[in-house]
């Protein structure tokens, strides 16, 4: 049952991820990305990570992808052929990444029943509490660094947007 649902989610995730870059129309790519986000959330649910599944939908599908769609619709790009020139470079990098995956999998070997045993303790203690405790104790430093980076990015975005306005006033 568990591996069957993993097979379904994994297949759809891989297919829709390919469609995101293969489809010509930007809006279709966004729809494919939406399908992929949904199935990633489904994968989280099968791993008993309900909190991550909900956050995945709220943050990625609900906010970030809506912004993508907003930009795509606002620019009204009909078809995008601009990345065709980089096709060879992309293929080269893709082959390197594929070789890496093949090497890692062949070196480590696939586990028979992935992760299932380890998650039962997390499910018992309450998923959200476990995530919160881990973030604020074990991973406090990376967590704070990540939020600092996001803050810097935010200030940078505001500065770049304000450049034109402040230049005019001078």
């Amino acid at each position, binding site marked *: 049952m568990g591996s069957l649902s993993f097979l379904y989610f994994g297949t759809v995730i891989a297919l829709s991820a390919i469609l995101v870059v293969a489809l010509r129309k930007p809006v279709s790519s966004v729809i494919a990305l939406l399908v992929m986000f949904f199935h990633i959330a489904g994968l989280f649910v099968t791993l008993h990570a*309900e909190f991550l599944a*909900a956050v995945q939908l*709220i943050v990625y*599908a*609900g*906010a970030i992808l*809506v*912004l993508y*769609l907003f930009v795509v619709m606002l620019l009204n790009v009909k078809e995008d052929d601009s990345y065709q020139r980089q096709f060879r470079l992309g293929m080269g990098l893709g082959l390197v990444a594929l070789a890496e995956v093949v090497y890692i999998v062949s070196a480590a070997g696939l586990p028979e029943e992935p992760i299932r045993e380890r998650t039962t303790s997390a499910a018992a203690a309450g998923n959200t509490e476990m995530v919160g405790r881990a973030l604020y104790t074990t991973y406090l430093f990376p967590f704070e660094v990540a939020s600092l980076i996001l803050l810097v990015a935010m200030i940078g975005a505001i500065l770049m947007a304000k450049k034109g306005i402040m230049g005019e006033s001078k």
Partner: protein
Amino acid sequence: MEMLVFAGAAVVKIAVVMGVVLLTVAFLTLAERKVLSWMQDRMGPMEVGPYGTLQPIADGIKLFFKEDIIPAGANRFLFSLAPILSLVPAFIGFAVVPYGPNREIELFGVTIKPFIITDINIGILYILAFVSIGAYGVILGGWASNNKYSLLGGLRSAAQVISYELNIGLAIIGVLILSGSLSMVTIAEKQAGSILNWNIIGMGHGGGIWWWFPVTQIVAFVVYIISAVAETNRLPFDLPEAESELVAGWMTEYSGMRFAFFFMAEYANMILVSCIASVLFLGGYHAPYPGTRLPDNLSWIEGVAWFTVKVYAFLFLFFWLRATLPRLRYDQLMRFGWKVMLPLALGNIVITSIVVYFLRD
């Protein structure tokens, strides 16, 4: 056998909830027209049935038999997908709303909670996740119609939903701090007692001599209500479908049942945000007085009745706002969302967490 009973009970609960919600949606359209009419000193619909009470049925039959038009140049797939993407998330949220006391009954050896479809431990996040998916219906419907009015409506909706969704998420955090859980049932149970224990007043969170200290969530409540009105695209925040500017916004090219889907989604969303507001801030199915007045085996009637009263009070508020307030301008909407509501919601989180920290120690 047990599996069968479990599945059967789930199907029955889903059928009942869907039936009640659909019936409410149908008669909400009539209620809205009647309430608006009375506020404007008119009669409202009077022709179909006594006092126009059968108007929703006539409307439904009319929409069902209308010609279904797909405009030339529209993206057929997305044009058909958009109403479904709008309607399904609006109904999915009702799965975690507790509309009666947290009881358990034994049925053929299976424990069933009769007053909630399923109590998942991230209930409120689940609702927020699917409410945010509902925005895709509006945006894609506007884009796929290949119409300038529709596209403008869709774009406005995208910006509005992102801005106000954030405020909803931040407004409920105060409540989550008080109840320490994301489950809708636990949030409601933590407000048991009387009206003083409801999160809008928030007594009963301190220990010792500070038992009376209210951790009031009234600011969060106001922020939530305003953001919920904006999130459901209702007046005075109905810029995505502003009639005087955009014909009907993203719905301009839709007709027949596809239009009805959008319409039903809007009303179902209204009911859903009202249900969330009553569970999170007004104690859900708890009465404003301590305990119940009916005998123990009938007290669930009281709980369901109080929940219904609260939800309908919110729905009335939606109509009242529509009859009273003029539509905001787009820059006013954005400025209000980011510069008034967001700081209020953030301040509420800071103050609530500080007060709760000192009260619990």
